[in-house]
């Protein structure tokens, strides 16, 4: 039965002071300077060694990797869909067609995004044979196929610098995620359906929302430097009765058996849903 006798406060304070610095033995926190020094030295050497070991194993690991393609690509077997412009908050577009400020951000984003698709930037790109996979695994330098901005028609920004936002026909670009070595089968095309009938009519550029097979496969950032992923522009003609209504639109990739668009868990695999609300 260890009866704890309460030590007087002053005494316990003195003990603490003694513990922090003991002038008799020169002990600081229960150890002498030499002892602390040795301990620090030990941990310095020990952790130094560990750090070296870590660096070395990481280096060896990195040596086993190729610069061009990742070792495994099993975690991304099927591409996701994404849109541009991508509103900051969530995938929701809110704008007033008569207030240019309200959609300025979307327009700038689109302009910036399409910058790299300008003809001047595509001087090195070649015209590829449409409608079939552009296989070039033999070639040391992979060529990129030209994507004609004019294919995007009204959404190319050439005819309408506001991408239709001022007219109540906003453009949204749908793109498919780049995946190295992905070769879509069949004739992939983007199809968008509004959730609510009769509120919006949809126009695709290029026609039918087709994604040409010549843009596949992708060979990776370092080998395929000027690669441009194909785009499908979706122009939404919002019906006059549907202003101030929230319209949900889901775009899916169709026509290609090896591109999933119905995954239970991944809501962005081969599909994307976004909302548009326009006011006047």
């Amino acid at each position, binding site marked *: 039965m260890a009866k704890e006798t309460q030590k007087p406060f002053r005494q316990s304070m003195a003990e603490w002071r003694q513990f922090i610095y003991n002038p008799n033995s020169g002990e600081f926190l229960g150890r002498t300077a030499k002892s602390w020094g040795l301990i620090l030295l030990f941990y310095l050497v020990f952790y130094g060694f*560990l750090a070296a070991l870590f660096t070395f194993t990481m280096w060896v690991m990195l040596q086993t990797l190729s610069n061009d393609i*990742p*070792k495994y690509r099993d*975690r991304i077997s099927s591409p*996701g*869909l994404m849109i541009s412009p991508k509103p900051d908050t969530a995938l929701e577009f809110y704008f007033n067609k008569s207030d240019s400020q309200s959609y300025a951000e979307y327009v700038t984003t689109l302009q910036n995004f399409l910058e790299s698709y300008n003809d001047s930037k595509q001087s090195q790109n070649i015209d590829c044979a449409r409608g079939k996979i552009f296989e070039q695994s033999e070639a040391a330098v992979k060529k990129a196929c030209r994507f004609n901005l004019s294919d995007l028609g009204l959404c190319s920004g050439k005819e309408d610098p506001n991408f239709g936002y001022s007219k109540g026909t906003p453009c949204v670009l749908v793109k498919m995620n*780049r995946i190295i070595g992905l070769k879509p089968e069949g004739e992939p095309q983007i199809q968008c359906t509004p959730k609510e009938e009769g509120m919006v009519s949809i126009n695709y550029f290029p026609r039918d929302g087709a994604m040409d097979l010549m843009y596949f496969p992708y060979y*990776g950032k370092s080998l395929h430097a000027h690669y441009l992923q194909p785009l499908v522009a979706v122009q939404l003609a919002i019906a006059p009765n549907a202003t101030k209504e929230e319209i949900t639109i889901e775009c899916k990739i169709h026509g290609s058996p090896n591109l999933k668009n119905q995954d239970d*868990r991944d*809501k962005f695999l081969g599909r994307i849903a976004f909302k548009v609300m326009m006011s006047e």
Partner: protein
Amino acid sequence: MFPDPGSLGNKNSSSLMLCSLLSTSELEMKYGTSIDKGLSSARAAEILARDGPNALTPPKATPEIVKFLKQMIGGFSILLWIGAGFSWISFGIHNYKEASRSHQLYLGVVLALVVILTGIFAYYQEAKSTNIMASFSKMIPQVRATVDNSSLTGESEPQSRSCDFTHENPLETRNIAFYSTTCVEGTATGIVINTGDRTIIGRIASLASGVGNEKTPIAIEIEHFVYLVAGVAISIGVLFFIISVSMRYKILDSIIFLIGIIVANVPEGLLATVTVSLSLTAKRMAKKNCLVKNLEAVETLGSTSIICSDKTGTLTQNRMTVAHLWFDNQIYSADTSEDQTTQPFDQSSPTWTALSKIVTLCNRAEFRPGQENLPIMKRVVVGDASETALLKFSEVILGDVMSIRAQNRKVAEIPFNSTNKFQLSIHETDDPQDKRFLLVMKGAPERILERCSTIMINGKEEPLDSEKAEAFQTAYMELGGMGERVLGFCHLYLPENEFPETFQFDTDSMNFPTSNLCFVGLLSMIDPPRSTVPDAVSKCRSAGIKVIMVTGDHPITAKAIAKSVGIISATSETVEDIAKRLNIPVEQVNRREATAAVVNGMELKDMSSEQLDEILRNHTEIVFARTSPQQKLIIVEGCQRQGAVVAVTGDGVNDSPALKKADIGIAMGIAGSDAAKNAADMVLLDDNFASIVTGVEEGRLIFDNLKKTIAYTLTKNIAELCPFLIYIIASIPMPIGTITILFIDLGTDIIPSVALAYEKAESDIMNRRPRNKRRDRLVNQQLAVYSYLQIGIMQSVGAFVTYFTVYAEQGFLPSTLLGVRVNWENNAINDFEDSYGQQWTHYQRMYLQWTGYTAFFVSITIQQVADLIIRKTRRNSIFRQGLFRNKVIWVGIFSQIGIALILTYGLGHVTALNFTPLR
């Protein structure tokens, strides 16, 4: 808290005193009863209604539900409850704000489940081990006969009872008998003066329950450990909460980090593991005859530094055995071991023939029939202790005693009584030619000698001159000095002419000679030590455990036994011994020179606690003789004042306060009373002191092995904690999930950490001193530093290499991972670019993250296998300890790998668990 035991007899027993003073008729008056008729049934019912049944109030037991709830909130559980609470709160807020964050809900549920399951498990283990309940025997009313008070007062000799008031202390007076004592002989009528809790035993029992249950050393150690780990967990948690808040993380996110840090820091499975290890050891000890009632007592025994042991039955065999003989002027010693079959001493002398005949014939003890196949020593005998000893002794040497007695028909007999102090019988001889009667007699040696005029030397009767009487005295003193009970034997062949065959012997008038007999020899008996005890005592000695003998017996006997078992070693002397050797008065002896001490209960009574402390400090070998069980308590308290962990053995009801008071009370399974068993933490099934020593060994082993288990378990905590810290600081994708951590703590790591409990002792653990409960902690600085800062960091480094490898091989080089957290976790970003230009959806990234969890998990698991092998030994080299001696370790390793495989490949598709199949 506990009143001075000396006052027990006087305090609050005035009614008893009064009763012992009153005459029978006065008693009848006082209790409204009559000796012949008893109480009227109406009156009896009235008293029953007033006083309740004659039973002791059982000690107040903690309600089961309280015990269960204690398991639920004790230890780390409270931390985990907090974690679960935070999870739910954050889930609630998230749900309100943006929905679809069921992750937090799962986590909370899992944490709560963990607490509840481990709580139920620990409760079940505890409950399984406590099942010896009190059942007090029937009331023996106040009788006047011979009673065995041993359960009450510890006196081993039966006490006679009469109508006389002999002492003012009710425990001493002869006209009161007590509840729970048994009447061994005679009949008596008595008046019940008290029942139930108002009896002496009731008071003792209530005293015993009044003595608080001290925390066991292991409970203190575990508490210390829990505080330490909880302190680390909370301080790191709070520190990083502050860091993350100041790094502009959202408060909710910071709370989630806090939960993660707590979960990573708390070894959830450890307390369950400790319970299992203890109960495994308890099982092992039960096999070695130590039944452990309280699991934690397993370890207490290991840290024991003083054992206060009973003598009778614990150190000794609890049966009188012939130890020495004296005839033909020579002392012979007999074999006193437990399983003797022959006696080696010289049996050729005709004096022995005569002596053996007396021993055989002058004896009323008989074997119970139907035990012919049992070894002689194991047979049950009807008769008192000394006669039993003599019967067995002669049966061993001469063979069938009963047929010898039949051949020497008994014609007359005077049984032993306390006035004569002898026993006499007259027999026909087995020689048909010899028509003489043989008178045989045994008794107190001096009384026998008085009746003799001759002495038999080498078969011839020689006159008993002063020189021979001197020889007798010397032998008598020597045997008595060894603490042995000595009996003298003599005989006389009655002359045929005076006592013809038809002579009628009358034992009342004694119409035969009882003097001028022929002295034949002496036999001395002792309750010999168990043969395993000396070895056990010396083991204790080398293990640094002080063995103190506490006995109600005579100091001389106690000292003799203490010497023969090594409690007092051969070379050490008491103050009295030194005085005798130097021939100086006791007062002049330098007390420091004496290593041994024999303290009489009467001396103890007058001692102050300082004096007792001095004795306990200055003498290494101590025997307390003639002590009452109440004094045992004083001795125990004295030992505890020295800072010792005290183990106490006891069997009587009166021992129960001391048993409770001791750090570990050990009750005797065979001789022990239920009250003692109830108060004790451990029951020795074979009453053998040597079993305590095996218990000590097991207790020390479990302490060592628990250290290993804890070191093993703590190591991976760092590897679980570092990911969180680096995640918060470097903003990399989360390396390991909270649920994954739980799978390590409660899945892969459980069986290996239990397996460490099966580890054999490394060095001879019985050769080191008992651990100092203030200094040798279960979890000390070295262990924590070694686990946390050395092996733990190494594990983290290893696991991080795996983590970075997984991400790099999938396309995210280490450099791209830093600072990526916010975008990585953003639900709306579904074109996250990796180092090779590929783009990932949010779910694809999460799936990769879970692959990272799984890889991190597997990495820790594999490193824990290595850690397990490291932890097998602390001092020995792994090769000396042997990789294959502990087979259970391999079971642990395979289970670990098996569980990891099942989790990774079997459950790869259960989203909530966050495991993915690895390549």
